[in-house]
């Protein structure tokens, strides 16, 4: 009995000691956790804040991709997945005319003028609650709004404004960061969403509730037009090998930079300009990063020569251009790349067939150009104006012994699926021609995986702008070309008395082939 009672007392003492020890350890652990937990929360909050910017930029990228899909080429796209307010609180799919229509009469009236002049603004279209996070990642949603901005009446020069707001979830409940200096920078929505943020929450409300981190990126996007450079290639670029062959520029709109009739003033004229820029997208193999991507062959280029890499930054010489003796080293670069997307032809609905007996094509008005569909081959031709004509050729364009005559009051757009051969003829440079490359714009269409060629030789004199990313351009002998070329490759064999003369008026004349961000803003006061 007595032994048992003493044992009970000893067990009780042990229990008390154990409880005290456990309590002490628990207190220490709780204190440690209390001190450490805010730091973990802060790390999570900072990660979500960074994630929100990446998501907002992903929203801009999504909009840029849809811009490219829907606004390059002559046919407006369907803007799949995008929505707009159709009035009366009704949200629906994008109407084909939305971005074409100016939002307010006022902006139209105020439009025009120089710097500071008002631009026309369309109604916005938007992507609603775009989910940009993978499963298991921080839940993130983006709302993207897009407006079309007009500087001139020309839809080809239309800019766009993209505003993308991304919201990332934070772990609940929401606690402010342990360091108060973080607050003004990260501006978390801990308990409720700020009214300024709600303005950008278009369409259905976001499914991510506070606590959350939101960031807004806004960009102004300008179009990249097809003829901004004298020569642009996706692969090889080889310049003239003999004679006085050179690349230079003039401006057919300015009598101080061209002849009084807007033609090229001649290589030795002081009116000749230095904006004959050439560039190639072609890259070097992975095992040989530095080496030539453009063969200048001793030809002079009065403009910038740009490649996609190839120049060793450790050396003073420009390895990216071969035969660069006549080039200005200060105008050789290696940081160029520009996506070249083939353009699609306009609708062939109500298109007329080829004129009978080789007669001239008739131009229509600018708002309603006449359209022709040539199901076979097209030879030499002329157009009677005034106005605009669109000629779509399913087969080859081979002028044979003739030429192409585009009068001064006509602009012709040619869409060709086959090969193009100018032989040694006058293309828009003969009697009665405009001599303006912007008035003969030729687009080489994509034909499956087949490569096409554009060829001219002898004493061919061409005044035209050509864009065909699947076309290999081969010029020989004394070919003289006024205008611009965008092609898969360019090769000038010989040169002689010829040359390549970029008309600076083309910089704003071509259709958009891509877009670039002209201004990047983060709206930090929202």
């Amino acid at each position, binding site marked *: 009995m*007595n032994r048992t009672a003493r044992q009970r007392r000893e067990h009780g003492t042990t229990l008390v000691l154990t409880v005290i020890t456990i309590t002490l350890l628990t207190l*220490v652990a709780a204190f440690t956790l209390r001190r450490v937990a805010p730091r973990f929360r802060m790390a999570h909050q900072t990660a979500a*804040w960074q994630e929100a910017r990446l998501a907002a930029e992903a929203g801009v990228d999504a909009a840029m991709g849809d811009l490219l899909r829907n606004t390059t080429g002559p046919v407006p796209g369907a803007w799949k997945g995008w929505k707009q307010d159709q009035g009366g609180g009704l949200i629906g799919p994008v109407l084909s005319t939305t971005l074409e229509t100016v939002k307010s009469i006022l902006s139209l009236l105020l439009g025009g003028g120089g710097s*500071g002049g008002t631009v026309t603004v369309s109604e916005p279209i938007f992507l609603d609650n775009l989910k940009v996070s993978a499963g298991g990642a921080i839940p993130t949603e983006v709302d993207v709004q897009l407006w079309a901005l007009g500087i001139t009446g020309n839809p080809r020069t239309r800019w766009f404004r993209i505003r993308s707001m991304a919201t990332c979830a934070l772990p609940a409940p929401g606690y402010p960061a342990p*360091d108060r200096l973080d607050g003004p920078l990260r501006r978390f929505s801990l308990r409720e969403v700020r009214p*300024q943020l709600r303005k950008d929450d278009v369409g259905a409300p976001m499914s991510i509730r506070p606590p959350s981190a939101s960031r807004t990126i806004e960009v102004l996007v*300008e179009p990249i037009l097809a003829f901004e450079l004298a020569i642009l290639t996706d692969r090889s670029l080889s310049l003239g090998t003999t004679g006085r062959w050179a690349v230079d520029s003039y401006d057919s709109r300015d009598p101080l930079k061209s002849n009084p009739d807007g033609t090229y003033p001649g290589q030795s004229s002081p009116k000749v300009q230095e904006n004959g820029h050439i560039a190639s997208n072609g890259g070097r193999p992975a095992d040989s990063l530095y080496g030539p991507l453009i063969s200048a062959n001793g030809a002079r280029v009065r403009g910038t020569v740009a490649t996609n890499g190839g120049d060793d930054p450790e050396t003073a010489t420009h390895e990216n251009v071969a035969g660069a003796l006549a080039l200005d080293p200060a105008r050789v670069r290696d*940081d160029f790349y520009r996506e070249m997307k083939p353009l699609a032809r306009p609708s062939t609905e109500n298109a007329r067939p080829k004129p009978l007996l080789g007669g001239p094509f008739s131009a229509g008005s600018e708002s309603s150009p006449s359209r022709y569909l040539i199901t076979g081959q097209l030879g030499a031709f002329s157009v009677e104006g005034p106005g605009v004509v669109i000629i779509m050729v399913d087969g080859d364009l081979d002028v044979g012994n003739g030429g192409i005559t585009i009068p001064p009051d006509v602009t012709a757009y040619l869409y060709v699926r086959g090969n193009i051969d100018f032989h040694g003829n006058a293309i828009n440079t003969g009697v009665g021609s405009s001599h303006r490359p912007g008035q003969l714009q030729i687009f080489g269409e994509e034909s499956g995986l087949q490569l096409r060629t554009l060829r001219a030789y002898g004493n061919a004199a061409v005044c035209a702008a050509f864009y065909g990313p699947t076309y290999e351009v081969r010029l020989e002998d004394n070919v003289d070309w006024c205008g611009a070329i965008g092609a898969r490759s360019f090769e000038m064999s010989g040169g002689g008395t010829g040359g390549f003369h970029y008309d600076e008026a083309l910089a704003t004349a071509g259709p958009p082939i891509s877009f670039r961000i002209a201004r*990047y803003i983060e*709206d930090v006061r929202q």
Partner: protein
Amino acid sequence: MTQTPAARAFTLAETVIAMASSVLIIGALLLGTMGLQKSLHASEAFASSQSDQRRLIDYLARDLRRCIGIGVTTGVSGAFTRLAAETVIIEDRTALVLTLPGYYKSDTPSKAEFDEALPAVKTDKGIGYGSGSGPAPGVSVTFRKVFLPEQGGYCFVREEAGTEQAIVRGAKDLQLQVGIATDGKTCAVEVWFRSAFGNLRPVISTHDQIMLRNLRID
């Protein structure tokens, strides 16, 4: 059977052993707790310094990403120099000056238009933000390390449109270096401090590479 007094109490040996054990256990607990506290304090100080590093880089990155001009002011006169492909340490009288594109209707925090964006207007190069009088001028933002008595020591401050804001407190040992790449398209920011702990007091460095999204016009 009656109990003897000896059976009711601990023997001397038991008491001595129990006391010695208790002292050992409590001492170990005390030392452990003190060590834990010291370690926790060191970790907190380290985390706080890293949080300062991160905040300084994030402030800079946010502004560098959208800036249209980068320069430094040095010396007593505060002469401005455009920052080309070079590296500078922001301390003493050297301040980093970024030019942000004009975007807001007002830079006065108390005004209602403080958070309102300007409309898009025509510019010489296409479209930008501005008003009828022309494109909005750039806004200068300055980052510098200064001694602020009211904050109790050295701080990194960010000044925009005359409003100065401390973004890092206790920055005496925090160093900031900004470098522009040779191609002018990226900017490297490095922030480091010397750890207060450990025999070697290692340098803890954090850096970021930021793409300059806008073309510089300075």
